[in-house]
């Protein structure tokens, strides 16, 4: 897969002539515009004052006056505790991802390196769980978490979000790239399995682990369905619910610039993460991630 990274694409098609080329660029630019426009809209609107936005019969493409009032109000007074949502989400994403990494590293190591009876059967069972849609199991999980009295707690949010069979699979594949001889060499030197995992395997598979971490953080940051089901207490809201709350109750339905400022704040962390780890994320996703 490495050699398939989009950046390494060689030019393969040529649509005839300069006119064709211009057509291609036009089409690509058009779609880029479609993608970027919502972002553009949210950014410029977030810098408009409520008054000037309301006064616009026809929305202005560029604000007449720029204001950061919407942002300061988000973090200042505010009927809507956006900072709280952000902190909740960050906490949720970090803890969930951290637990997941521990769980999948251990499991992937067992599958990739240790030998035990029934390994193949267990692995096939794991893989078959990948096909189970989360919609099917969420019902009982909802009941389980309710019965455990974990509604409106971080634990209830985090626990069912931890497991990810696909990442175990991805990491196992990556662990298996570590040559057998390296394991034997470590054995000859008297390295314990656990030390080998921590000191050799994990650093050697750093790239895949980082990819998995980023993908999981994105997933956590955007997760909506599960948090919505089990948290009713705004103190435990994540950003997705926060935005829904803002839309339905906060700011008054009319204060669009304030809403857009919130949207910008929510979107920025992920976009920054993406721009930093662009290659890793795209590579990881092309290896089989699907949204949600």
């Amino acid at each position: 897969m490495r050699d398939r990274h989009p950046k390494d694409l060689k030019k393969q098609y040529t649509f005839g002539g300069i006119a064709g080329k211009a057509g291609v660029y036009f089409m690509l630019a058009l779609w880029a515009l479609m993608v970027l426009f919502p972002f553009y809209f949210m950014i410029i609107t977030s810098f408009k004052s409520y008054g000037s936005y309301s006064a616009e019969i026809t929305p202005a493409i560029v604000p007449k006056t720029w204001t950061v009032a919407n942002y300061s109000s988000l973090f200042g007074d505010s009927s809507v505790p956006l900072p709280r949502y952000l902190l909740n989400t960050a906490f949720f994403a970090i803890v969930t991802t951290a637990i997941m990494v521990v769980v999948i590293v251990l499991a992937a190591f067992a599958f990739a390196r240790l030998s035990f009876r029934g390994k193949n059967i267990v692995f096939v069972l794991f893989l078959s769980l990948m096909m189970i849609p989360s919609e099917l199991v969420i019902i009982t999980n909802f009941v389980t978490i309710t019965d455990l009295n974990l509604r409106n707690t971080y634990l209830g949010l985090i626990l069912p979000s931890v497991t990810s069979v696909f990442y175990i699979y991805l990491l196992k594949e990556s662990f298996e790239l570590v040559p057998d001889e390296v394991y034997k060499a470590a054995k000859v030197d008297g390295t314990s399995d656990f030390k080998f995992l921590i000191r050799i395997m994990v650093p050697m598979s750093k790239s895949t682990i980082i990819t998995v971490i980023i993908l999981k953080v994105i997933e956590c940051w955007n997760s909506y369905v599960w948090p919505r089901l089990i948290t009713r207490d705004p103190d435990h809201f994540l950003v997705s619910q926060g935005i829904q709350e803002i839309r339905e109750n906060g700011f008054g339905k009319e204060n669009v610039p304030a809403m857009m400022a919130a949207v910008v704040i929510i979107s920025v962390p992920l976009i920054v993460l993406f721009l930093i780890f662009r290659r890793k994320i795209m590579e990881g996703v092309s290896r089989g991630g699907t949204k949600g």
Partner: protein
Amino acid sequence: MKVTLDGVTKIFPPHSKKESPVTAVSNFNLEIPDGKLVALLGPSGCGKSTLLNIICGLESPTSGSVLFDQNDVTKLPPEKRGVGMVFQNYALYPHMSARKNILFPLGNLKGKAKLTKEEKNRRMLDAARIVQIENLLERKPGNMSGGQQQRVAIARALVKYPGILLLDEPLSNLDARLRLETREEIRRIQKNTGITTVFVTHDQEEAMSISDIIVLMKKGVFQQSGKPQNVYDNPANLFVAKFLGTPAINVFKGKIENAKVFIGDEPVADVPGCENRDVYVGIRPEGLIPDKNGPLTCSFKSIDVLGRDYMIVASHGAAETSVIRAITDSENKIEDNPETVRFSFKKNKFFVFDAKTEERIYLG
């Protein structure tokens, strides 16, 4: 340290019910004297790497035992045996510098064996000095040539002061020029450290050129061991004769009748005391001398000049291969493009093997 293998057998269980178990090593007896450089030689798949792994402790034998000096280590895990191992692909940790790679084994020492930081560093530098990579210590394996990686791997094996150094196909991943250089290097390191060293190879030239002792094996079974020249001159069987030497030995089908050995219809030599039977006759290329009155008649094909020597390429109906080769010096002239060429034999280059057992029955 002296290594003794006593009746070592390794049978791998089948992967599935359809397959049958594989005997990788069969009742292997061998004594490796202290301080020698020993080559385990054989074609690929003959079980030599398995044997190395058994000495190392990565595999345990199905039966038989492994002794280091007088101590039975058969049941000991590798780390308790005090062996150093260099793997075919070096198995260096790619995320660690050469320095950290060499230090890594010392970090595993526990309890009384634990070393101070200074002691670790001193040993690391010693090992690096022995393999001459002091200037490469901060590099990671990815930024080194194959030969340099090889040296780091050897240093990593030496840093533990092993009683035995094991190398699995140490030269197979190097290009031809480096291979020559590195095998001399291994020879030098072994001589300097005096560590009993066992290396596995399928390249007979490599084994012959640097080792004190070569051990030949075939399909898991011991064939012969000894000083390289001795084994070359006194092959115990057809396999050993064929495996050693380039160009390979010429082999003919033949028979013994009335104490004479025949190749085709021609009686070529007297073999006193040998019973009548079918045989193989092996003659080293340097053992064939062009001789108008020689007993063996072959069809002439071509002459290749190899500097001082030249090689006559010919064919014979009873030969196992399509061509036979004779290497001789330029004094033994033959006429230009003859139809046939006749050969006589040099002493000690002419062997007769039983056709059934392939054991050598005569050396002439």
